[in-house]
């Protein structure tokens, strides 16, 4: 699922998920990137060494990451080799370690997986230089997410901003409204937009994760980061008053059939790629769609929209008295203990922590960096700049996707757990309390097993 969320291109999301288990392995085993051409000059300190990096990225993303690696080669003389790991990073890395072929550096897409690796003793704590760079260049929260126990293992190189509401400027102009600043304003704006004849929101409710992202934004803003953390670790039950309140708030939007394209029943039949198409496709049906910054990528690549002109976003607005939420996620670089060129790998991480490294991919596009020292001008367009600014400005209040932090059976499985219960809630939002109770029951079951 995660890959799709990032690139969001695959139409047949669920079908790919059906075969993901076996396919990912097969692909991972065969689809290895070629050795980088790299500069032949061997005068760097690491000349003659080859750093192997595994990442989930393929296609354009892999090409752009390769540019970063090439720059590293130029600086140090080390050669680099990028290996595609397939979707299931932990299976891939595990089998490589057993086979004595461990990569030196792995890019890990989930915070839970970093913890899992560290607990298995696969990782080396990062060097003090890398740690220093991180402390200087990143908000503390990023270091925390990369820390397991007391040791710092994961450097977040690439991030996502999942607090962006994308809209079609034409539709808002037609209704004569401006992007809203608060949640209440957003509901009012949505009402006016719907009155104008364009349903306000396209919601991809057939994919459960879009709904968890909706909830996370509302909850983070309304209940605050403290409670959000407690809920993520399940130190607080879902029956808490704050959860019910957040569901009520969400229900004001989900329960109003005039605000959703085809009503909530229609939303439940819409998968995420289709929901983007409903706003930015050739025949727009709705005015706004909420999801992460990758919506812009789809609008641009698949529907030929120009970001900042006919595809814009506004930050997910603040709910009640809270601050505007910034829900995020990212890929962390870790150094593996069994890698053959651990030292060179560590050097690569030190390099990835610098704004220079981030700037290379930022220019190429399709990338956000949590690095606060990175000059925003490095991003190729203003829309991406704004998304990056939101992410960096949020500082320590950034929170990772809650459902990604939960056990998969609760927060990441089609047809059960949080996904299913929020889908039921989208279908009938009349009883937030009962929904909260059901979520808590599911959470209890899942957390007790993990």
């Amino acid at each position, binding site marked *: 699922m995660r890959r799709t969320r990032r690139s969001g291109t695959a139409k047949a999301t669920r*079908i790919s998920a059906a075969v993901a288990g076996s396919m990912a392995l097969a692909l991972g085993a065969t689809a290895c990137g070629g050795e980088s051409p790299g500069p032949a000059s061997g005068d760097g300190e690491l000349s003659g060494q080859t750093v192997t990096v595994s990442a989930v990225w393929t296609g354009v993303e892999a090409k752009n990451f390769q540019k970063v690696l090439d720059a590293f080669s130029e600086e140090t003389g080390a050669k680099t080799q990028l290996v595609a790991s397939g979707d299931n990073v932990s299976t891939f890395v595990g089998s490589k370690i057993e086979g004595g072929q461990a990569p030196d550096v792995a890019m890990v897409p989930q915070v839970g997986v970093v913890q899992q690796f560290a607990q298995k003793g696969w990782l080396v704590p990062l060097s003090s230089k890398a740690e220093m760079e991180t402390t200087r260049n990143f908000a503390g929260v990023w270091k925390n997410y990369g820390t397991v126990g007391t040791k710092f293992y994961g450097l977040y190189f690439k991030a996502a901003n999942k607090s962006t509401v994308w809209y079609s400027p034409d539709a808002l102009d037609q209704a004569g409204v401006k992007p809203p600043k608060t949640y209440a304003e957003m509901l009012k704006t949505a009402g006016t937009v719907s009155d*104008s004849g364009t349903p306000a929101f396209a919601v991809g409710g057939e994919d459960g994760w879009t709904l968890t992202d909706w909830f996370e934004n509302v909850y983070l803003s309304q209940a605050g980061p403290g409670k959000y953390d407690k809920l993520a670790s399940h130190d607080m039950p879902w029956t808490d008053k704050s959860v019910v309140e957040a569901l009520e708030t969400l229900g004001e939007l989900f329960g109003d059939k005039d605000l959703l394209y085809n009503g909530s029943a229609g939303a439940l*039949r819409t998968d995420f790629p289709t929901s983007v198409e409903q706003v930015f496709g050739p025949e727009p049906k709705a005015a706004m769609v909420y999801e992460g910054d990758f919506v812009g990528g789809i609008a641009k690549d698949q529907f030929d929209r120009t970001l900042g002109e006919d595809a814009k976003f506004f930050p997910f607005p603040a709910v009640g008295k809270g601050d505007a939420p910034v829900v995020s996620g990212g890929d962390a670089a870790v150094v593996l203990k069994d890698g053959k060129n651990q030292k060179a790998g560590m050097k690569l991480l030190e390099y990835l922590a610098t704004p220079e490294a981030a700037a290379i991919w930022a220019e190429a596009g399709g990338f956000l960096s949590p690095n606060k020292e990175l000059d925003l001008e490095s991003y190729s367009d203003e829309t991406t700049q704004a998304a990056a600014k939101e992410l960096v400005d949020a500082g320590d209040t950034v929170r990772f996707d809650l459902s990604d932090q939960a056990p998969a059976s609760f927060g990441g499985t089609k*047809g059960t757990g949080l996904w299913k219960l929020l*889908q039921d809630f989208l279908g009938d939002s009349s009883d937030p309390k009962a929904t909260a109770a059901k979520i808590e029951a599911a959470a209890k079951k899942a957390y007790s097993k993990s």
Partner: protein
Amino acid sequence: MSSVEAPARGAVTPRLRAQRRKRLVAAVFVLPALLLLGALVLYPVIFSVGRSFFDASGDTFVGADNYTEMFRDPATLKAIRNSTIWVVVAPVLLTGLGLVLAVLTEKIRWATAFKLVLFLPMAVSFLAAGIIFRLAYEQDPERGVINAAVVGVHDSFSESSPYPNARSRDGETLVKDGEGYRGKDAAGPGDTVNLGFVGVPPGEMPGEAKPAADAAKSTAGQDELRGVVWLDFTPGGGGTAGEVDAKENGMPGMKVSAVRDGETVASTTTGDDGAYSFSGLDPGSYTVEVPASNFAAPYQGVSWLGPALITPAIIGAYLWIWTGFAMVLIAAGLAALPRETLEAARMDGANEFQIFRKITVPLLAPVLTVVFVTLVINVMKVFDLVYIIAPGPVQEDANVLATQMWLVSFGGGNDQGLGSALAVLLLALVVPAMIFNIRRFRRSES
């Protein structure tokens, strides 16, 4: 006596030895098969049974807890219910369809070509078939071919309404009345009642619509009740809600009626500027109604992938794949039927239906049973179609035992204890069908 016995005894010993050797050779030959069977079938079965008595981690013995949990969990109960539906409905339908088609194809000229076409879906993998039917069942008529047909047929018989999306802002000039609307205040002759709607996409407004402001201001005659029905939204914003602003258009073609004491006194249709008028009214109090027929939503087709129809829909896809199989097997049996019996019946004046019922079916019974039982076993393990066709929100409504078992143990549930218990249940359900099949097999061999 002894002289007689001695040679006899001497003869028995080599025979015994030969027998023993025979047995040994037999054992050697059987051993590999037994080993394979043991390692690949028996061991996993025993392991699963054992595993089903342990918890998710596999460390703690929990007795029959997994089994009680299984029958308490509503998702599993639904899966059991669905599996039952599958087992009862699918094999019967398939055998019946196969029989009818086999008998019919006997009588047509291009029988082989026909059979070939019907058999073709067997060559399509379940995964691919699932993807095809997932698209075919899509509710949006623009995507799902089945609903496109349904909607096409429906729409050629009934007219669509002019303003399916129109609605009023709450209680401003209109009040919702059932599926239609009525004017908020009662009015009488001499009054002007303007009715404002919103929510109509610019593209859905009829081209002839004209600004309604002038008509809205004109005064009503003595015995006249008039007004406009207009779109209360200024493109680009800026209008005042509830007032007919200069740029706002009337809504032509809207049916309006005047109602007095629950009885419709007069009806009319609005003009290009949205104006309507009722003249010649008796004095009194009237309500202006905009009936539901103006707003009837376009027919949406059938919700194949909704919770109610999902299982029948998937069974439909299953039929598509397996009908050819049933038909070919039954046709083979049919070809082996003694022709003379059929001829004799025909000579005796039986009609085709009587022959089918009294002769073909009884003679075919053994083949039909084989097909039926094979399909029962096959249906028990249906997985791919259910997993692929059912969208996330209705997955629980579509699950069968096999998908539930996989979901619980690997698909996120990570509880292989409970999953094993489900597997054992599935095994227990398949075993009777297996025993039946084996018995029949033996009988036909002997």
